[in-house]
């Protein structure tokens, strides 16, 4: 069972990202769940969403909060400042973060692996959202696929087509660019 947590802000598309991730794994034949953590639904407020991907030999499934995710995705790097996104993250887990900076400079403790992608710039280039409020969810999924290998790029692209059919071409281009440009740091501990 692989458990994922996505941290973003209202308007960035964290909930759709969790659904698309689950959709990608579902298309690969996995049993999956995805769900948002409901709280205050406001633009800019922190938002958390989750996905659970079963291994082929898992026979029973649970329905409980994900407290110790295997990997996390961070749509807004300022969220890392509070440390909250790292809570419970398993050692060796990936932190896939939207940032123009190098993975080693993001202040993430050495027991985690960091992948950084400039998802905001990519989103703006493909006309997703505005420069002030780029919609970065699909770009971060491309980076996640490359860093973790939990899902393939092709499956992510198919899932994007399924989840955001209205702007599929731009979102697919953004995810592909992120896949190609994500910078991955080595495990330091």
């Amino acid at each position, binding site marked *: 069972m692989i458990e994922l947590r996505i941290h973003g802000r209202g308007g960035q598309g964290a909930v759709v990202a969790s659904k698309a991730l689950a959709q990608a794994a*579902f298309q690969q034949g996995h049993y999956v769940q995805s769900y948002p953590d409901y709280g205050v639904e406001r633009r800019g407020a922190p938002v958390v969403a989750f996905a659970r991907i079963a291994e082929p030999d898992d026979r029973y499934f*649970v329905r409980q909060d994900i407290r110790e995710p295997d990997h996390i995705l961070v749509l807004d790097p300022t969220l890392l400042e509070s440390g909250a996104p790292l809570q419970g993250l398993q050692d060796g887990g990936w932190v896939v973060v939207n940032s123009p900076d190098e993975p080693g400079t993001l202040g993430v403790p050495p027991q985690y692996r960091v992948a950084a992608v400039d998802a905001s710039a990519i989103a703006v280039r493909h006309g997703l959202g505005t420069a002030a409020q780029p919609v970065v969810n699909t770009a971060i999924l491309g980076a996640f696929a490359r860093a973790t290998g939990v899902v393939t790029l092709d499956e992510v692209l198919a899932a994007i087509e399924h989840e955001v059919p209205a702007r599929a071409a731009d979102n697919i281009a953004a995810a592909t660019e992120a896949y190609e440009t994500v910078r991955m740091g080595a495990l330091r501990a």
Partner: protein
Amino acid sequence: MGERHLLTGNHAASYGAKLSRAEVISAYPITPQTTIVELLSEMVASGELDARYITVESEHSAMAAVIGASAAGCRTYTATSGQGLALMHEMLHWAVGARTPVVLTNVTRAMAPGWSIWSEQTDFLSQRDVGWMMLFAETVQEAQDFVVWMYRVAEQVFLPGMVAMDAFILSHTSEPLIVHDQAAVDAYLPPFDPLYTLDPAEPRAYGGLVNRDHYFEIRYKAFEAMERAGRLLVEAGEEFGEALGHRYGPVDPFMMDDAEIVFVSAGAMTSNVRYAVTLLRERGIKAGLLRLVAFRPFPFEEVRRLLEGRKVAVLDRNMSSGHSGIFAEEIRSALSMGAAPTEVYGYVLGIGGRDIRVETVLDVADDLMSRDEPARTLYVGVKGLPIGPARADREIARLAPLEEVSP
């Protein structure tokens, strides 16, 4: 044989109504139900579902609208949650007396105040005595299928039925399910064939004044119909398996053959209980699970046969204050008639959506094995308190300032 999709529990319920070809839908939006009727309204607007969608100003009116449409001979559907179901209460009784087989999905939600949108069964179970059939879904698949199953029985006995699913844990969680073939559902669920319909050409009086010389018989017929519904639920659940690939029944036993300790649960938490049972088995503990799918009609025979003589922990995500968890109460009552002595321990947990984890169930198992006297109500997971009964000697005092209470 249908198509695999990834859907939320709410959208699965929408598909349940669509596959059932609901003809009139009326609802008032309330979190966490809203996306059920939102999708249905889109289906109606696009023509994908040939139905009339009636917008109303309250849940009370929504129920009145579907009762009226059902009396006119239409298959009707509505959905609600928590306070909304409470506001429908008066009309829920009416649907039974009027013998209108309305089907409703209730996303179970804790009652206010404190204002909560999270899962708890008390809203649903508070409608115990209105005379509706009542089912609990555990999965997104069941959130869809139970709507279809319910219509199949409801329209044979002319009684309404409600299906419960847990707020968020099912309602807003996407998971794979089979959305059945329309033709296969049509073969399973024939069109609604009412005995009487509102028809100006053939006027009749409905819901009129009834004196003492007739009321009892009118109600007695509804009680008889509910008894018959118990048999029909079993038959229709088996036929669902033959026609659509999932076999359903009023109870769902797991690892019960040699079980010495048994958990009883309903709804989404059951998935975690089942997982916990497999972990207990790995430790050599003979644990089992009895999931209650049907709450009304209550599966007396199955409960008695499967539970008698065992050590039983009933897991209630609800409470009838001053008595017990509601399932515990019902299980004890079923076991009081002719069953061998059975120890029933009532555990109340997960109130207001508090996470019921696999570990929570394992904690209950440890507690259960440490006790040898059946307990009425044991609270699990109250901050700062071990598993145990409520204290009867606590005086009411002013609250401490928040900073002294918070961890």
